[in-house]
């Protein structure tokens, strides 16, 4: 089962390539993004190590069950609500961003609402499946997509038009200390392993230390490529003007003798599947965190009958509303607010799990 943990971690890393993380980092490329990338690796790996190792103290339990035995009910209510919202927003962000991308690049004649409806019709039923089935599905998608992603990154690293001087010109600003927002955005790519708060229940063996080394190396490589490939292709000064730097970068690649000359088309398809999988995972976790809230007092008992459909409907309506209402700058603004506080939520989770593990020991 160890490998599923790596899939969870890696899926989150690659999914964020098309989301807002690269745009945020690239916008501040001269103001500390380089340092943020370097610092994000130890921070991200340390946090995910603590989360996973504390979860292992409670074999075959997920976060709601752990909290049941450690904290009072009202605290549990608040905590689960907060984390449920965090995971919901994570999925929502990718849904909104990819919805916007599909409107711009795939079918401009469809309205945003229609696109979001299509996405929801796929995402919601799948995220209601059992956890183990989702993991199996993820494994298949992982092995289909990873070779293509590796191909595109390696291709662009050795591309004739890759300007390494531009990369170095940005690299010289590495001594600038990043803002919390940048640090939070950069370390976000490591939070994939935090999905273990739900999926951890399925893991029987302990996660080996080697897995974290792989995550550290993979995470650094991912951050490095997400940040520096657009800079190398679009220029240190020019990259700032693009709304979706990664899609433009993919469009700048040309495979002369490939099946498709323009890389953008396989890239968009690739990221459709990765984005969907990532939304499904986030919302699955979120949907598992919420139901407990409604069973916390007697008064909520009435809702129990509806509860399997209650949360998904709320998710769908929220996504549809935001998808129809938010324009591109607003989506990015929402995203940058989310990423600023995401690191805080992660640290809260770590402290909580440490507390729970400590309570169990004594």
């Amino acid at each position, binding site marked *: 089962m160890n490998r599923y943990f790596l899939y969870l971690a890696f899926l989150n890393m690659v999914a964020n390539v098309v989301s807002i993380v690269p745009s945020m980092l690239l916008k501040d490329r*001269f103001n500390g993004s380089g340092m943020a990338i370097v610092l994000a690796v130890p921070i991200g790996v340390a946090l995910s190590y603590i989360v996973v190792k504390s979860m292992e103290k409670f074999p075959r339990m997920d976060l709601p069950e752990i909290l049941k035995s450690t904290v009072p009910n009202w605290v549990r209510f608040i905590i689960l609500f907060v984390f449920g919202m965090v995971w919901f927003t994570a999925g929502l962000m990718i849904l909104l961003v990819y919805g916007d991308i599909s409107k*711009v*690049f795939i*079918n*401009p*004649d*469809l309205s945003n609402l*229609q696109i979001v*409806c*299509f996405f929801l*019709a796929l995402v919601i*039923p799948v995220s209601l499946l059992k956890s183990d089935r989702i993991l199996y599905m993820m494994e298949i998608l992982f092995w289909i997509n990873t070779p293509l992603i590796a191909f595109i990154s390696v291709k662009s690293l050795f591309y*004739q*038009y890759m*300007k*390494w*001087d*531009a*990369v*170095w*010109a940005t*690299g*010289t*600003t590495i*001594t600038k200390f990043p803002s919390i927002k940048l640090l939070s955005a950069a370390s976000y790519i490591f939070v994939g392993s935090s999905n273990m708060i739900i999926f951890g229940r399925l893991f029987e063996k302990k996660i080996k230390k080697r897995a974290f080394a792989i995550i550290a190396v993979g995470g650094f490589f991912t951050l490095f490529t997400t940040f520096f490939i657009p800079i190398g*292709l*679009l*220029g*240190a*000064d*020019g*990259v700032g*003007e693009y709304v979706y730097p990664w899609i*433009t970068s993919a*469009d*700048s*690649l*040309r495979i*002369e003798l490939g099946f498709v*000359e*323009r890389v953008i088309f396989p890239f968009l398809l690739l990221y459709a599947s990765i984005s969907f999988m990532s939304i499904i995972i986030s919302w699955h976790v979120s949907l598992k965190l919420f139901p407990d809230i409604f069973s916390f007092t007697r008064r909520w008992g009435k809702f129990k009958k509806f509860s399997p*459909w209650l949360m998904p409907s709320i998710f769908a309506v929220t996504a549809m509303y935001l998808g129809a209402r938010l324009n591109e700058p607003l989506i990015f603004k929402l995203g940058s607010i989310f990423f600023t506080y995401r690191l805080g939520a992660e640290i809260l989770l770590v402290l909580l799990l440490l507390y729970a593990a400590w309570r169990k020991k004594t």
Partner: protein
Amino acid sequence: MRRKIVLILILLLLFLVSGCGFKDIDKRFFVVSIGVDKVKDTDQKYRVVLKLVIPSSTEKFGASQSLLVHEEANNITDAIRIMKSKVDKELDFGHLKVILFGEELAKQDITQITDWFTRRRDIQRIAWVGIAKPDVEAIMDLTSKAERLPSNAFIISFGQSGTESAFITSEYLFNFRSRLKERGLDPFLPVIEPPPDKNGMFKTDTVALFDKHRVKVILNPDETKALNAIALGLRKLDIEVGKGKETFMVSAESVKTKYKIDTTGNKPTVVMNVNISGTIEESKSALSGSKLSHYEEMTDRYAGERVLKLLKRLQKENIDPIGFGLRYRATHFNNQTKWEDWCSIYPNVDFKVNVHTELRGTGLIQ
């Protein structure tokens, strides 16, 4: 069971979603090249020319048919909208491969026009960009017996997937745009001219160098070749060495250029090392295999002189298509002032060119 029915009902709702805006291929006009030029004698700003493909069932050499549509307007968007009303099919820019700017326009200001091309979602970033001389229509009107698809001649010669010529420079749209913005790396575009006689297809042996706004200088073919070899990733070229009777041609298979900016001495110096390897292709007098090292030295000297002359010219015009400025930015850490520093260094910088040639032989004869 009830859950399944609900699910099916939800899925059925998807049928209410209207069909996508996809138009059939026979209702589309594919634009393969676009030209933007300045208008003389009117108050309209741009003249936009589109080359539309007329699809044919057989793909034969010389059978390519196309349509030129043009319009004058104050901006490109307007021109395209008006052109849409002039043709019966939907204009599709998805296959736009060649973008041409008129020479007059390029000499005025080019930054504004590239905006439309980079802002539009459906323009390929890997379209080839060039300058049309004397004007856009003269170039876009060129058709050839050897073309199977309209504009294909440009596409395969720019990509060097057809002819591999040391004179042809080529530039993608994304790279041109990024060079327009990058401090320390200036843009360039190939200049395309009509053929001097009626048997040629077109002539593109010069390159136009820009500052950040307009064409600053158009290099002559020899300088173009040198620039192409040292900076623009050309692999194959020929070099004329010697004079009078002792003249021979070196056909280089690889040219590798490295440069660094040395600021340790009292005068900043750009040190450029060029490694050439190749064979001798033609000679006016008999050559001797034992004197190969002498020929190598001669090549070093002649090639070095040419490169040095080019670098000095670029410096005099204060343009930097090779990217010395960007290299300076990449290797210096004083981020606040380094760009201003470089701006004052570049006009006075010294150049040192070391060419190292490795000749594999004298060809098949001595």
